[in-house]
């Protein structure tokens, strides 16, 4: 057991003296991803807020045919602009978000009480044009309904007869659950933090040590190989956990400053979130450290190990994408799958949804078992003759 601690302490000390590793573990890994994320969300939220409140600039072709409609739009904070010569082209080339065209026969149809034609020209594949387009349609609908009601009243009928159904929305989302959608990628950033934090050590302690020709003398010591491996895995895991703990803390602090309430969302990022997220990430850090070491042990050189581990970094995005594209109902078995379990747990914690203690334990235990398996496979590789021989 002493040997395990000796190896652990030596790896930690040696890697703490490597500035690049320290910067990656304590700074780049934990901070960059959540900070970038928060910055992104901040920009998105601010833009949404601006769009809802700011005046809507609207190029209108044929404004002179419907002065009443134009006046109604102006009242609703719409800034009427002159239409470009070719409205369709302007929309396609993103010179305008949406253009309104009023038919020359508008007034004639209107006066007869026939449907009067207006055209809304937009591009539904343009994400940022969706807001203005929707706003315009709502204004047009409201104007149409108001006029319809007035016409019915003029004929002595109640406008109520046009509303045989009374539909009322009862949205069951909470401010927290709405933010869940937006933050679906957050667990991936935490997992990436683990991978970045462990990567340098996973490579350094196997492929690196072999390339520097120090593995053979190390293995000539009277210590069983699994103990040497255990010390190295421990050091790698320690760095990975440090990274993810800093990452979670950084996010919990910075997340408080997001202007989410303004768009009707909140996040639960208190001590409970920090503690439970760290709890489910612990065994995952150990598992990923073992996998990284396993991959690095297979590699023939430091560079090869870096390439392989770069590919490994892409694996955890799979459950993230799955859950984002196919938002399936959370089921108990999900907690038992490493990566997916963490994903589900962190999302639910963040949304303020309840997570049963048994589910947390299931997540922890199953990932811990997977970590143990990964460590055993790595130990098997460590016992092969090929491992120590460089070149």
């Amino acid at each position: 057991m002493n040997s395990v601690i000796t190896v652990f302490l030596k790896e930690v000390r040696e890697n703490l003296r490597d500035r690049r590793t320290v910067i990656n573990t304590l700074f780049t890994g934990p901070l960059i991803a959540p900070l970038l994320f928060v910055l992104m969300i901040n920009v998105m939220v601010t833009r949404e807020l601006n769009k809802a409140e700011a005046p809507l600039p609207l190029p209108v072709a044929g404004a002179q045919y419907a002065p009443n409609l134009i006046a109604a739009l102006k009242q609703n904070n719409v800034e009427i602009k002159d239409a470009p010569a070719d409205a369709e082209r302007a929309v396609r080339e993103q010179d305008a978000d949406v253009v309104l065209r009023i038919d020359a026969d508008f007034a004639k149809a209107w006066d007869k009480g026939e449907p009067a034609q207006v055209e809304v020209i937009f591009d539904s594949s343009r994400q940022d044009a969706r807001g203005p387009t929707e706003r315009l349609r709502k204004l047009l609908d409201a104007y149409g309904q108001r006029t319809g009601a007035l016409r019915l009243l003029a004929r002595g009928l109640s406008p109520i007869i046009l509303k045989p159904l009374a539909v009322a929305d009862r949205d069951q989302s909470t401010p927290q659950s709405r933010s869940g959608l937006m933050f679906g990628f957050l667990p991936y950033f935490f997992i990436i933090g683990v991978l970045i934090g462990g990567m340098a050590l996973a490579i350094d302690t196997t492929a690196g040590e072999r390339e520097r020709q120090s593995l053979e003398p190390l293995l000539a010591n009277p210590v069983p190989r699994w103990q040497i491996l255990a010390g190295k895995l421990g050091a790698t895991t320690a760095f990975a956990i440090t990274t993810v703990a800093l990452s979670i803390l950084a996010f919990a602090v910075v997340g408080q400053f997001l202007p989410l309430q303004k768009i009707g969302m909140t996040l639960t990022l208190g001590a409970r979130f920090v503690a439970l997220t760290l709890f489910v990430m612990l065994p995952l850090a150990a598992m990923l450290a073992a996998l990284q070491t396993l991959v690095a042990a297979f590699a023939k050189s430091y560079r090869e190990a870096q390439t392989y581990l770069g590919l490994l970094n892409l694996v955890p995005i799979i459950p993230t994408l799955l859950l984002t594209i196919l938002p399936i109902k959370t089921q108990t078995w999900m907690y038992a799958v490493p990566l997916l379990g963490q994903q589900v747990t962190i999302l639910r914690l963040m949304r303020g949804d309840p997570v049963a203690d048994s589910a947390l334990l299931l997540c922890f235990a199953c990932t811990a078992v997977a970590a143990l398996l990964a460590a055993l496979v790595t130990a098997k590789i460590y016992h092969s003759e090929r491992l120590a021989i460089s070149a």
Partner: protein
Amino acid sequence: MIEVRNLHKAFGKGAKRVVAVDGVSFSARDGEITGLLGPNGAGKTTTLRCLYTLMQPDSGQVLVDGIDAAVDPVAVRRRLGVLPDARGLYKRLTARENIDYFARLHGIETQTMHQRREALADALEMRDILDRRTEGFSQGQRVKTAIARALVHDPKNVILDEPTNGLDVMSTRAMRGFLKSMKAEGRCVLFSSHIMQEVAALCDRIVVIARGRVVADESPDALRAQTGEANLEEAFVKLIGTDEGLAA
């Protein structure tokens, strides 16, 4: 005391199969320096790797102080001080930290570790570099550090794979003196080399290996008598049947 009995080791399979060691047997006695002499690629490093249990022989037996390496490899490694062919240091650690790391892996108590380290630093004349990080060490400084960490547990048996490789004349002389002092201390010293003069000057016993087999196992004088050559180098060429891979 190191005994090797009928060691076999091959790499690869089928057509690519290379037999590296093909029935090597010899003994290295306590209080003697035994030289493993052979051209490059003769199987010296593979034989030594089997000795310090980095590799498992396909067949044959390795005994260190009577302990079978196949039965208790950890006990065998405890009785060996090894300077392998690969002698990389941890460059972000000082020489002292490099030495102490191996001492702790041997389970040596702190007090003893200090004594041994200081004694070795004096014997190897490396006191001035003890607290420097090993990054940027000269070849000679690196070898000194590697030897110190290999011997910090005061092993009865010492195995060195080409210990003078890459050393300048002064360092080589110092190394020879050090090997002799270990012999005087009653240790069993086994080292490999492809350099004639070195082996002739140092060894009580020479084991000549060529193509994975032992072709001679004698004292230098007996070797000369056996081949009928007064010059040891001529004797060596005659033994291995070619001068390929032989360096002055």
